[in-house]
C-alpha cells in the first residue's frame, strides 16, 4: 500500500493484513512501556481542515507510540485562513520533509488530489473527506466487530465464534451488520459498507428515506426504513448507530425529519430495541454521540456497547496503518505486501 484513501480500493487480503497488524499493535498497548521505536525519525503531519478531536488525537497518539515526530496543522489560525491553496500547503509540507500526511478535509476527494497530483511524495492517509470516506474509522469498526463477533472476546460467547484468538486472520464472512441513522451525510457509513462487503459481511442500512443518498441502490448492501423489523427479523450481529449530523443539515434539524423526537421514536436505539437483538450482538457508535437522539443513555452505557473500546482500537488500527504505509522500501510504487 502506498496511500490509504478509500476502503473501496482495499483488497480483502490487504484489509485483513491491516486488522491483523492492528491486533499485534493492540497487544503492545497493554505493556508498561507502550512506545515502539519503529518509525523513529519519520515525520507525520496531521493536516486538519475540519474540526476533529478524537480522530486527530487518535492519529497523534498512534504516531507517537511508534516514535514518529508529529506536526499538527489545523486550518484555523494557519495560512489556510489567509487563503492558501491546498497545493501550496502540500508543497510546504513536501519542503519540510513529511513522510506521511494525515488529512481531513471538508471536500470529498481532497486526499485523493493530495496523493495523486504530484505535489507530495509522502504517504497520504484519509482521515475523513467530506461525505466520501473515513477508512480508518471503518477499519477500527471492522476490527471491533471481528474481535467480538468472530473472535468471541470479552465473554461474548456464542454467535459466529470461530477462533479463540480475537479472530486474528479471519474475515467477517456471514456477519450481519445494521448501520442505522444519517447515512446521507455519513462518510463512516460509506467507508463501512465497502469494507464490510470486502470482508464478506452483509450490511443493511436503516434510515429515513430523506437521509438515504440518491443512488444508494447501487451500493453493495440492503436498505430498510424500519428499524424494529430489521432488528427482530434480520437479527444483526452488530448494530452501528450513526450520529445525526445536524451541522450538515441546513435549515436545522427539521429539514430532514419532522422533529428530533419523531426521529428518536423511529430510529433511536433504546432499551426496548436493545432487547430485540440477539444475545451476542454488539452496539457501535463512531462518536461523538447525541445521547437521547440516535442512542439512549441506557443503550450507550449497556454492556453490549463497545463504544469506548472502539476508541482504544482506533489507536491500534491507526498504528497499523502508519506502520504498513511507512515501513518498507520507500521507493516501492507498487503494492508492498508482507513477506
Amino acid at each position: 500500500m502506498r496511500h490509504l484513501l478509500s476502503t473501496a480500493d482495499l483488497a480483502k487480503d490487504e484489509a485483513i493484513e491491516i486488522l491483523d497488524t492492528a491486533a499485534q499493535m493492540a497487544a503492545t498497548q497493554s505493556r508498561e512501556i507502550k512506545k515502539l521505536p519503529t518509525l523513529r525519525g519519520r515525520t507525520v503531519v496531521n493536516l486538519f481542515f475540519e474540526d476533529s478531536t478524537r480522530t486527530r488525537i487518535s492519529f497523534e497518539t498512534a504516531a507517537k507510540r511508534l516514535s514518529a515526530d508529529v506536526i499538527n496543522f489545523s486550518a484555523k489560525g494557519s495560512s489556510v485562513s489567509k487563503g492558501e491553496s491546498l497545493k501550496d500547503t502540500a508543497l510546504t509540507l513536501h519542503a519540510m520533509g513529511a513522510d506521511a500526511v494525515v488529512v481531513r478535509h471538508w471536500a470529498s476527494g481532497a486526499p485523493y488530489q493530495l496523493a495523486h497530483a504530484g505535489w507530495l511524495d509522502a504517504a497520504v492517509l484519509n482521515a475523513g473527506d467530506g461525505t466520501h470516506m473515513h477508512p480508518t474509522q471503518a477499519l477500527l469498526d471492522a476490527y471491533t466487530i471481528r474481535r467480538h463477533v468472530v473472535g468471541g472476546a470479552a465473554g461474548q460467547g456464542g454467535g459466529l465464534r470461530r477462533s479463540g484468538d480475537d479472530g486474528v486472520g479471519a474475515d467477517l464472512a456471514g456477519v450481519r451488520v445494521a448501520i442505522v441513522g444519517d447515512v446521507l451525510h455519513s462518510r463512516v457509513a460509506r467507508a463501512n459498507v465497502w469494507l464490510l462487503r470486502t470482508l464478506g459481511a452483509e450490511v443493511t442500512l436503516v434510515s429515513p428515506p430523506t437521509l438515504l443518498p440518491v443512488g444508494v441502490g447501487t451500493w453493495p448492501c440492503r436498505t430498510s426504513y424500519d428499524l424494529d423489523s430489521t432488528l427482530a427479523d434480520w437479527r444483526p450481529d452488530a448494530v452501528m448507530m450513526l450520529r445525526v449530523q445536524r451541522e450538515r443539515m441546513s435549515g436545522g434539524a427539521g429539514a430532514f425529519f419532522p422533529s428530533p423526537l419523531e426521529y428518536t421514536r423511529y430510529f433511536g436505539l433504546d432499551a426496548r430495541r436493545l432487547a430485540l437483538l440477539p444475545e451476542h450482538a454488539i452496539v457501535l457508535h463512531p462518536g461523538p454521540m447525541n445521547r437521547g437522539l440516535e442512542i439512549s443513555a441506557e443503550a450507550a452505557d449497556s454492556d453490549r456497547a463497545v463504544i469506548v473500546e472502539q476508541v482504544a482500537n482506533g489507536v491500534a488500527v491507526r498504528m497499523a496503518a502508519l506502520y504498513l504505509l511507512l515501513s518498507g522500501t520507500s521507493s516501492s510504487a507498487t503494492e508492498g505486501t508482507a513477506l
Partner: protein
Amino acid sequence: MTAGTGMPGTPDRPAVPEGTVVLGASDVARALTRIAHEIVERAKGAQDVVLLGIPTRGVTLAARLAQRLASIDPAFDPERDLGELDVTMYRDDLRRQPTRAVGVTRLPEAGIEGKTVVLVDDVLFSGRTIRAALDAIGDLGRPQAVRLACLVDRGHRELPIRPDFVGKNLPTAQSERVRVLLAEVDGSDAVVISGREPGAGAPDEGEGR
C-alpha cells in the same frame, strides 16, 4: 555425518533438492539436548529460566528446548516459562526491506522481570535480529540476565554479539544461504546450505565451541 546425502527422514521433501544437508534430524535432536543441559548448568537449575523464541523457527526450537528442560529439571514448566518475542518493530532495516508482517509476542504470565531469559533463534548471522530482540526485551522488563541460544552460528557478525549456546558452528561464505528446516513447519528436520561453490567440501569443525 555425511555431507551431500539426504538424511533418513528427509526422503520425499521437494523443498530440499539443491543444497547440502549439514545436520540431519538426529544431529538437530542431539544439539538441542546438549543446549538444554548447558542452559541448566549455566543457570544452576531451571527455576528462573524463561525461554523466548524468535519467530518463526526460533519459536519451534524454543518449544522443543522447553520439553527437554522440563525433563532435566521439573522446576521448569513449559506452559509457564515459554514465550515468543517478535522483533519486527525493533528492526533497523525496516526501510530497506519490503513491509514485514508483525508477528505475535507472547510473554510468560509472570513476565521476565528478574528472570534469566534465554533467546532462541535458528541461525545466528549478522546479529541484527538479536540486537532488535535485546531492545524489545528492554521495553518489556528487566531480566536478571539475557542469554542467547542458536542452532547454527554461521559467522559474519556485524555487531558485537556472541551466542552462549550453539548447536553447530558452521563456517560459511557470505553468498551462501543457511536454512533450518523443522518438522513442525517444513515436514522434516535438517540444516541445509545452498549456494555453495562446487568442489568446496563441507568444513566440519565439530560441535559446539
